[in-house]
């Protein structure tokens, strides 16, 4: 290297010298701060998940297990109900965009701070505090096609009484009733997440936009939504995981998976196999399938999250 080149290199070197210790500290601190969550998840979550993967290849009944390899998966996919169950899950996915869009809209409304917004925010969140059993019970009353059913009386009062929906009584519509109830119940959670996300948006941006004369709709589309992209992704993934693996208590009281297998989701199927029939091996196999499904659907969303704004 010539002297001129070395002289030219000097600022870089100094920058490198100043960057490396900081970068090294950043790396060290990063690992240090990750240790708690890594230890907790590693010991109490990843180990049983690993065991589940193992048991998915066996016919475990809780006491003894016998390795049967990929036959376990083949047997599962050959079970006729399983195809219905997978179809049900596919239909459930359609509810997710609605479960995300509705609370997003209401969060926007509340963010405009109209009078009484704090009251509304509290009220909208309250159903989250109610247990799934009560929600299911209320839902059954709502969808009851008899005169005492809430939906029926609503329709009668608005002149649509001729249409007698008996959602819970038919195989193909029971799932729709479950989906509606699901959207209702995650409303509060998603709304809170969006409100928390909106708190990261600098108020000055809004003020500047208002000075520029932007209407509220423009503000919504051009400013708030892009900045909330991460949170929308997050809500999407969380709602998906809830729909696929947290609705068990709702379904068992509301429809018990029926009529037929109409409202049996994969999660409900897993519970039936694993707990009701003590067929933990099949439960593990189906659990792995569920994991793969959720992962596949969430992947593109996760990538969206990781892209920098």
């Amino acid at each position: 290297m010539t002297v001129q080149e070395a002289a030219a290199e000097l600022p870089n070197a100094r920058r490198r010298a100043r960057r490396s210790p900081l970068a090294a500290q950043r790396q060290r601190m990063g690992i240090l701060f990750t240790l708690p969550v890594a230890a907790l998840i590693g010991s109490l979550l990843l180990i049983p998940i690993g065991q589940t993967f193992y048991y998915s290849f066996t016919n475990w009944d809780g006491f003894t297990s016998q390795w049967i390899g990929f036959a376990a998966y083949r047997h599962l996919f050959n079970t006729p109900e399983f195809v219905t169950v997978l179809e049900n899950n596919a239909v459930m996915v359609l509810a997710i965009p609605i479960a995300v869009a509705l609370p997003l809209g209401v969060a926007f409304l509340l963010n405009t701070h109209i009078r009484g917004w704090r009251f509304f925010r509290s009220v909208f969140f309250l159903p989250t505090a109610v247990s799934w059993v009560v929600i299911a019970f209320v839902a059954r009353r709502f969808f009851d096609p008899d005169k005492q059913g809430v939906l029926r009386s609503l329709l009668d009062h608005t002149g649509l009484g001729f249409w007698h929906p008996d959602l819970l009584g038919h195989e193909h519509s029971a799932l729709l009733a479950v989906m509606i109830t699901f959207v209702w119940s995650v409303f509060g959670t998603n709304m809170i997440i969006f409100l928390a996300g909106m708190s990261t948006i600098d108020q000055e941006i809004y003020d500047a936009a208002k000075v520029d004369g932007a209407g509220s709709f423009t503000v919504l589309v051009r400013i708030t939504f892009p900045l909330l992209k991460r949170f929308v992704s997050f809500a999407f993934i969380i709602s998906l995981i809830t729909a696929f693996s947290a609705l068990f208590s709702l379904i068992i009281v509301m429809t018990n998976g029926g009529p037929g297998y109409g409202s049996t989701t994969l999660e409900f199927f897993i519970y039936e196999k694993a707990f009701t029939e003590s067929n933990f091996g099949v439960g593990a196999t189906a659990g792995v399938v569920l994991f793969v499904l959720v992962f596949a659907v969430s992947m593109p969303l996760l990538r969206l999250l990781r892209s920098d704004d």
Partner: protein
Amino acid sequence: MSALEWVERQRGDVWRRRTGRALTYLVLFAVTAIMLYPFWLMGQMSFRSLPQYYLGKGFSLTTWHDLFAALPIGREMLNSTLITLCSIAVILAVSTTGGYALGTLRYRLSSLVFLIVVCSMMVPMQSMIIPEYINLARLGFINHYYGAIAVYSALGAPFATFLMTTYFRRLPEDVIEAALIDGLGYGSVFFRIMLPLAVPAIATVAVLQFIQIWDDLLVGLLFLQTPAHRTITVGLETIPAQHFQNFPMEMAGSLVSALPAVVVFLVFQRYLIRGLTMGMSK
């Protein structure tokens, strides 16, 4: 534009704003009715005795009396509170540090760790709870508070870390750079700057996890098999039997169980407001 036209335009604006606001309120009140219906139903049913429930009318305090006679409500509420608060403490400790590492520091392997954290949420609980149970039973964790707390913390940590990471990534870098230039280490940056800024997210995690842990049935059932340690949610499940569902008592019990979550939310929403009104004022 003439003065008249200007007045017309103003009136038009006001009218538009008023209808906009009226519509907004209409929607909000409709949603309110939908959201409050279960509470109204729970209240109505719990104030009927069992025969009155079947006949569909009446008012009585028998059910409430029977509920408190049948279950040790106070003890079970205490157990629920203890277990839930401890679990949340662990979850917050683990997720704020994890979120900081994965969202702000973003060191070399952090994407992989983040992926693992998110994936660990995707295996349904019913599939892996029995291996978990067997492992912890071998270690003697059954029928102890710390067993349930350990499991709840592990189950809630991925979601909390996920939210924290998302939240931390949205926080601006320049604040941190300013602090670093001032000579603060990354550790102090976390405690002095990032944590206070993360209060809305912390409040969100606390409230959501509170409800999830409080209302959980399966973990409480398996890991706390004795009535002394039992949570209220598991306790409520002892009301119905195979051929006898005491609906009014279940409604009364559910109402009692829902109250703490409501209280927690009302308390914590002040911290959520703080974030919203403060914005990102430096």
